[in-house]
């Protein structure tokens, strides 16, 4: 039954022809409900960002140099994030140095060299379970073993080890996925030339898997930098007026400052917390942007 162009559809095919008005309304209402449900999360995010900016922007721009260069203080107007910002930076670098090689090494071994047996399966499920352990439990690990048993105390080394251990499963998973994405033909091509397994992995598979692995690592590190609980539990200081010179020196962190200031009753400290949050969010944004840039620019499209 073809209708000539421009004529209206016959009434039998119009919406609502067989479905009653109520049912059509329900469909529309349902779609609307779904949309609302989706939008609420977006609105909540927007509100959160707005709240932070509203509370902290003025504090941040009134004297940014002082805010970045000062240590903490009992007087909110004088409080600055220097110890926390520098501490977080040191922690991030040291954590990366600790967990990236180990994580990539484990990923390479599991994907390329490990025999397919029950032990390997056990290791793999072990690692995915580790990824779901709460960060505060990693903090307890850091406290019990690194800070107390190994007597590192609440130091830069203990903090970085704790964060590294926490990030390790995520990096292993990211590395494995990147390695798995390299097509088998590439490995076969290398073997057919007379390359050993390690030669094929080192010079063909790993370089191809590097962008994906780096992206995953940077994302994992950006999560680690925003974490407060593990550092709180191992006892990293909030009130500190020096920067670390040595791995065994105590170090503070930006999220710890935010936590402390948020917990204070004075409204001026709430502003300071918001301002520090802006700095933290900006830092995370930068790291995520780098990760996404690497992924988009360097990932090989097979």
């Amino acid at each position: 039954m073809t209708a000539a162009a421009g004529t209206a559809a016959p009434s039998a095919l119009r919406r609502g022809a067989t479905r009653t008005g109520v049912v059509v309304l329900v469909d529309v209402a349902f779609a609307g409900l779904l949309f609302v449900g989706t939008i609420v999360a977006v609105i909540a995010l927007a509100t959160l960002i707005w709240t932070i900016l509203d509370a902290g922007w003025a504090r941040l721009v009134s004297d940014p140099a002082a805010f970045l260069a000062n240590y903490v203080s009992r007087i909110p107007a004088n409080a600055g994030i220097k110890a926390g910002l520098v501490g977080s930076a040191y922690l991030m670098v040291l954590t990366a140095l600790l967990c990236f090689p180990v994580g990539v090494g484990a990923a390479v071994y599991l994907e390329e060299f490990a025999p397919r047996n029950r032990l390997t399966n056990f290791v793999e499920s072990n690692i995915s379970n580790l990824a779901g352990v709460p960060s505060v439990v990693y903090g307890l690990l850091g406290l019990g073993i690194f800070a107390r048993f190994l007597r590192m105390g609440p130091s830069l080394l203990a903090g970085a080890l704790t964060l590294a251990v926490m990030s390790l499963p995520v990096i292993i998973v990211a590395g494995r996925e990147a390695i798995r994405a390299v097509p088998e033909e590439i490995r076969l091509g290398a073997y057919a030339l007379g390359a050993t397994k390690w030669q094929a992995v080192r010079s063909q598979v790993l370089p191809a898997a590097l962008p994906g692995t780096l992206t995953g690592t940077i994302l994992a590190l950006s999560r680690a930098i925003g974490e407060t609980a593990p550092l709180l539990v191992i006892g990293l200081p909030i009130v500190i007026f020096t920067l670390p010179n040595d791995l065994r020196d105590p170090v503070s962190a930006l999220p710890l400052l935010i936590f402390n200031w948020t917990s204070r009753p004075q409204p001026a400290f709430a502003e300071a917390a918001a301002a520090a949050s802006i700095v933290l969010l900006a830092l995370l944004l930068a790291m995520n942007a780098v990760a996404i840039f690497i992924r988009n620019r360097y990932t090989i499209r097979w």
Partner: protein
Amino acid sequence: MTEERTKVSQDEGRPETRIADVVRARGDADQGAPPTEVVFRLDDVHVYYGSFLALRGVNLDIHQNEITAFIGPSGCGKSTLIRCLNRMNDLIPGARVEGKIEYHDQDLYGDGVDPVEVRRRIGMVFQKPNPFPKSIYENIAYGPRVIGMKPGSMDELVEQSLRRAALWEEVKDKLKQNALALSGGQQQRLCIARAIAVSPDVILMDEPASALDPVSTGRIEDLMEQLKRDYTIVIVTHNMQQAARISDRTAFFNAEPAEGTGDRTGLLVEFDSTDTLFTHPTDRRTEDYITGRFG
């Protein structure tokens, strides 16, 4: 040479006449050539994947500086067999070879034999071109580097390999360009150049042109004719006419149900010089296949 190649099409008369024409058209250049050295000797070779017998009772010889073709319907074990010749089959878990494969009188699967060394002598080109995601130069230079060759000049080696693969003129100005940017036919010739760069003794080709267009296929076939002067070539192909055009000897494989299980096991039906196999096949099954009655 190319003009003498008859375009074989299925809708003009009977196929076996066409192939016979093709074979005759290749000329008598190969007649009366002195018998060449045997590179591979296969003696009652069986290949298993776990408990599944994929290929049984293969006896054949591959001769030096010849093109030997494996033809047959899908699932008859030709790819399995060619992968055994450079021990790439080792990479498949559960793969097992019984019987003897001798390479220049050495047991290919003997104790002390290193599959890595095997693959340095016996190269392979795959069905789907698989260049590394690197520059054209790096693709060629990779093989020599990993096997520890120290050529006087890597640049010369790269150029020589590309010339031999008939690719030099097309890429000489863009050696640093990523290999993935080349066309399919160029990529495959790059893979051939890559295989040549390590100075192999044998080049195995598993359906090298089946993923390519007819023009590229023709160029690869021309290339193989030149390559056989310097290398021994074994090629798996599902294209009979291709085998008839370029190979010196042909092995026809088929798959038949095994007793009891009903699983199809591959076996070598007939192995002879290409002329003979295509014009006067001994086995009924060979004739059926060549005339298109099955497969």
